[in-house]
């Protein structure tokens, strides 16, 4: 119930935070919302000797369109996603996902950065970033670098972020006309980790053909799954039921579920398909101007 001792720093800038992470080289963990890290420390499943609290760094919490991207700062609270009219209008996938995460209290402190960097295959935002083709912007002792979402998730609790780096921003390609996005999830009980979740982005041309697609899956593999084959099967095709169903079957095949307390592998695989279909259908409806 009580975390072990640690040293605590609350730097006021990204440079200072990175300097601390470098100084303690692997012994330090970033503290953002703390709602993944502190529970682990309270159960003594994680015992970093240093915490670097990044909540005091100004200018790290924002949601804005800038140039060709939607940019979200690392310490943006998950509830801020729900409050954003911009997201609701142009990137509803993130509104959908935010609504599914944990509970409103956790979301008041939990951050977008934390949800992206924790590396739990049950986190909801990673699949969304895979579907959206997002890019993660990191800061480290060697300077700034970016990693596409598709290369960000390596294994359970293992991401591309080095122990001396921190996420500062996630960049999502700006929404275009006739783009539809959505996220659907099923769980045993509200706020629990997914039995399965699916994220989709589709862009249609004037004839209703798919010009771009991205699909991500939650909870059906060691990491969020980037269903590239399923997305590829849609590009250049009409966004009709037959093609959406086919894409769902392909997505189902790309899942790598394991049996656990959230369901048998066979069930999760089937649900990946069910949710892929639902989320693609919803994305199409939104691309055509629906809700």
């Amino acid at each position, binding site marked *: *119930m*009580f*975390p*072990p*001792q*640690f*040293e*605590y720093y*609350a730097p006021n800038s990204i440079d200072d935070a990175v300097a601390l992470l470098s100084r303690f080289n692997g012994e330090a963990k970033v*503290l953002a919302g*703390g*709602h993944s890290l*502190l*529970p682990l420390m*309270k*159960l003594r499943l994680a015992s970093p000797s240093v*915490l670097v*609290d990044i*909540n005091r760094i100004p200018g790290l919490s924002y949601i804005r369109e800038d140039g060709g991207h939607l940019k979200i700062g690392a310490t943006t609270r998950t*509830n801020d996603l729900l409050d954003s009219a911009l997201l609701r209008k142009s990137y509803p996938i993130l509104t959908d996902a935010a609504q599914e995460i*944990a*509970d*409103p*209290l*956790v979301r*008041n*402190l939990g951050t977008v950065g934390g949800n992206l960097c924790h590396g739990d295959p049950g986190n909801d935002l990673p699949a969304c970033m895979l579907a959206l083709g997002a890019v993660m912007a990191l800061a480290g002792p060697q300077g700034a670098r970016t990693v596409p979402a598709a290369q960000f998730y390596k294994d359970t609790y293992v991401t591309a972020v080095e122990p001396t780096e921190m996420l500062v921003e996630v960049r999502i390609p700006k929404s275009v006309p006739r783009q539809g996005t959505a996220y659907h999830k099923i769980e045993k009980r*509200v*706020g629990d980790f997914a039995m399965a979740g699916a994220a989709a982005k589709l862009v249609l041309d004037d004839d209703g053909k798919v010009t771009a697609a991205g699909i991500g899956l939650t909870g059906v593999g060691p990491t969020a799954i980037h269903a590239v084959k399923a997305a590829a099967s849609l590009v250049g095709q009409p966004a009709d039921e037959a093609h959406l169903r086919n894409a769902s079957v392909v997505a189902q095949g790309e899942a790598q579920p394991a049996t656990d307390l959230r369901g048998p592998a066979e069930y999760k695989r089937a649900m990946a398909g069910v949710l892929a279909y639902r989320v693609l259908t919803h994305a199409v409806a939104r691309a055509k101007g629906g809700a």
Partner: protein
Amino acid sequence: MAAMARPVTPAASLMSPSGPLTRVEITINGQLYSAEVEPRTLLVYFLREVLGLTGTHVGCDTTNCGACTVHLDGRPVKSCTVLAVQANGRQVRTVEGLEVGGKLSPVQQAFYEEHGLQCGFCTPGMMMTATALLERNPSPSDAEIRDAIRGNLCRCTGYVNIVKAIKAAGKKMQSPPTAGGGA
């Protein structure tokens, strides 16, 4: 509510520390407090043990139950998953801060009138979440209420009267205050 200029330093110390201490200054229910704590001190224990504000409860160890809900800079959060040092320089409001000048808040009054509590253990956290909800949206639907309190577990009431209480409190907040009442 303006904080007092000179902070109160609680006499109680939390522990014989096994490491260096950090000074925190936190405004709680409008009163500024100053204390030295280990960085690992959880906000809920700071409130309960250093300040003696035992109205905020601990019901679990995995950030699920919500019995520890307080307001941090106006937003309801689970104080068992916040370090006291993270609240340094910030405003905290607990259940003890709901009653003002001897007058119960509309949420407190409504929980009493609608039998929204039985054992009372989840109640402070539940009321803090309800208060924050109604401050943002004084007329939520039943579904919105149930969603807003999904991070607050109750084992006694089955939630029916809690939802009624929150709805009734919202109505109270929208009409002019009347004299009297109170448990």
